[in-house]
């Protein structure tokens, strides 16, 4: 036994060469895999693409936002709530804003130090507590010292701030604008104001209060749990005046959508894989019957049962790879034309892999039957 038996690679080459004879079962096997793969893309693939689009919409910045409102300022929502909720599990960022106060350029004649009674144009300002997230703040410095301010788009010109910086003052507030900012979703409403940084402790007097606290969660599916945690963490004088708005219904909808589509997809994919396995098994049984004399000759020449099994499985695998690859390419084109988007990458990779596995599974019984063929019985039949 000093010579090795045919190696796996040479078996693959041999199986590929022999796919031409007989050609019909080869083409049928390729066609089955092609049709099965395209069907999956045309059904589950489109559903998965729609699911992905829906979830992307639901999982938007607005969808992930918890808004705590003390509309009349009667709840006494403390700025310390910002740092209290910021580090809750699942929280991405949290900022709070106080009441709106008009401010003007403090250096404009008649405006400086006049507590808002000067002749310069005024713009709304809001005290902001907490670190502004980069995902929200498109431009501008993120970390400000208390008393520093950022002006919204275009407001520096309204305030006549040279180079966009300079002191501003209002009836109860003084600050220095050190730059500008542009806020994105979900807090674009801040763009019409000057944001003045305040310490979370609530200022020297400790009497600052929040009117609105925005808390963004990392994943929309966590919003209900985080909302409860936020509610329990708020530092507030009278919780009965607090109103919390969330997209919890959207979150629940997303969970339902994922669950329903996953169930439906599993059913479709499972049924189709079983069907493909059965069809491939039927085709391979036919192929084995047609090749009985060839298999008997090979066994007589010394091919082991393992070699015969591998030969059948490799043949099926090659047909499956060709069919699944062509089906995937076609399925992607169909999905792109019909839905205008592509299925998720995991789906695109998983479908052909599962199809090939189904074809191999379906080929196991015919391969075992081929290996069990009695060469003598075959050779004795003229």
């Amino acid at each position, binding site marked *: *036994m000093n*010579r*090795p*038996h*045919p190696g796996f690679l*040479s078996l693959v080459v*041999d199986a590929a060469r*022999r796919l*031409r*004879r007989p050609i019909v079962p080869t083409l049928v096997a390729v066609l089955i895999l092609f049709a099965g793969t395209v069907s999956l893309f045309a059904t589950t693939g489109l559903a998965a693409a729609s699911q992905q689009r829906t979830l992307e919409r639901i999982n938007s910045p607005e969808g992930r936002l918890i808004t705590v409102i003390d509309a009349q300022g009667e709840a006494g929502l403390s700025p310390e709530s910002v740092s209290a909720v910021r580090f809750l599990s699942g929280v991405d960022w949290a900022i709070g804003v106080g009441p709106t106060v008009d401010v003007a350029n403090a250096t404009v004649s008649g405006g400086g130090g006049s507590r808002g009674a000067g002749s310069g144009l005024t713009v709304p300002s809001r005290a902001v507590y907490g670190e502004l997230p980069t995902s929200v703040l498109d431009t501008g410095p993120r970390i400000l010292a208390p008393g520093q301010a950022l002006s919204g788009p275009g407001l520096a010109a309204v305030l006549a701030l040279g180079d966009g910086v300079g002191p501003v003052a209002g009836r109860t507030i003084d600050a220095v604008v050190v730059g500008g900012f542009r806020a994105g979703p979900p807090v674009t409403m801040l763009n019409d104001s000057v944001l003045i940084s305040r310490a979370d402790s609530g200022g020297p007097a400790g009497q600052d209060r929040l009117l609105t606290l925005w808390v963004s969660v990392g994943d929309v599916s966590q919003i209900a749990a985080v909302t409860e945690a936020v509610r329990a963490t708020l530092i507030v004088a009278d919780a009965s005046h607090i109103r919390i708005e969330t997209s919890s219904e959207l979150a629940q909808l997303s969970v339902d959508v994922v669950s329903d589509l996953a169930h439906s997809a599993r059913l479709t994919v499972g049924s189709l894989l079983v069907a493909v396995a059965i069809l491939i098994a039927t085709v391979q049984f036919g192929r084995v019957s047609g090749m009985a004399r*060839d298999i008997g*000759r*090979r*066994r*007589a*020449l*010394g*091919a*082991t*049962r*393992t*070699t015969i099994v591998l030969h059948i499985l490799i043949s099926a695998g090659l047909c499956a790879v060709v069919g699944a690859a062509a089906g995937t390419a076609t399925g992607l084109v169909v999905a792109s034309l019909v839905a205008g988007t592509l299925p998720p990458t995991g789906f695109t990779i998983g479908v052909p892999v599962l199809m090939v596995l189904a074809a191999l599974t379906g080929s196991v019984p015919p391969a075992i039957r081929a290996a069990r063929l009695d*060469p*003598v019985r075959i*050779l*004795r039949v*003229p």
Partner: protein
Amino acid sequence: MLIEVEALEHRFTDTGDPVIRSFSHRFEPGTLTAVTGPSGSGKSTLMYILALMLTPSGGRTLWDGDDVQALPDNIRSRLRAQYVGFVFQDALLDPSQTALDNVLEAGWLAGMRADVSRSRARMLLDRFGVAERADHLPGQVSGGQAQRIALCRALVKTPTIVFADEPTGNLDSDSARIVWTALADAAQEGATVVVATHDRARATDLPHRLELA
């Protein structure tokens, strides 16, 4: 390789008459043994048993003293691939492959290096006068040429055992002479050669004969 059979017995069905009954014999290396007998006397069955393709109902088959029949099927197949050259009565070539590829298949199954196998296959095809048919399909060659190609396939791996089951039954006298000469040469080179034949005249000339009843 010394091949011995002891108390060999075989029946194809549990209740049928035995095709081979209490048969014992030694096939010496370097000899060509002709097995003769009427149709149904068990010549082909004996060939298949000796070549480890068929498990007998009883008795033992020994190769150089080892009971090879008791080995698992995969091991017996490997032994057959490596040591046995078999010439079938009807050539039994793969109709979808060229003559050369048919010969190479035996070398491939035996695990021979492709270049060595190809070189020896071409040498044998040339030796047996079918080199010009190397790229033809079996359907494009005569019966005599097909049997000579089958002989090349049996000899390509330089087997130590050669079995031939009625190898000249369908051949013209020239082709038959080539086949007999090749088998005799294999024996002379040290192989154990066993030939089942109806050709009593040819068998009579051989020093080792075995008559099955």
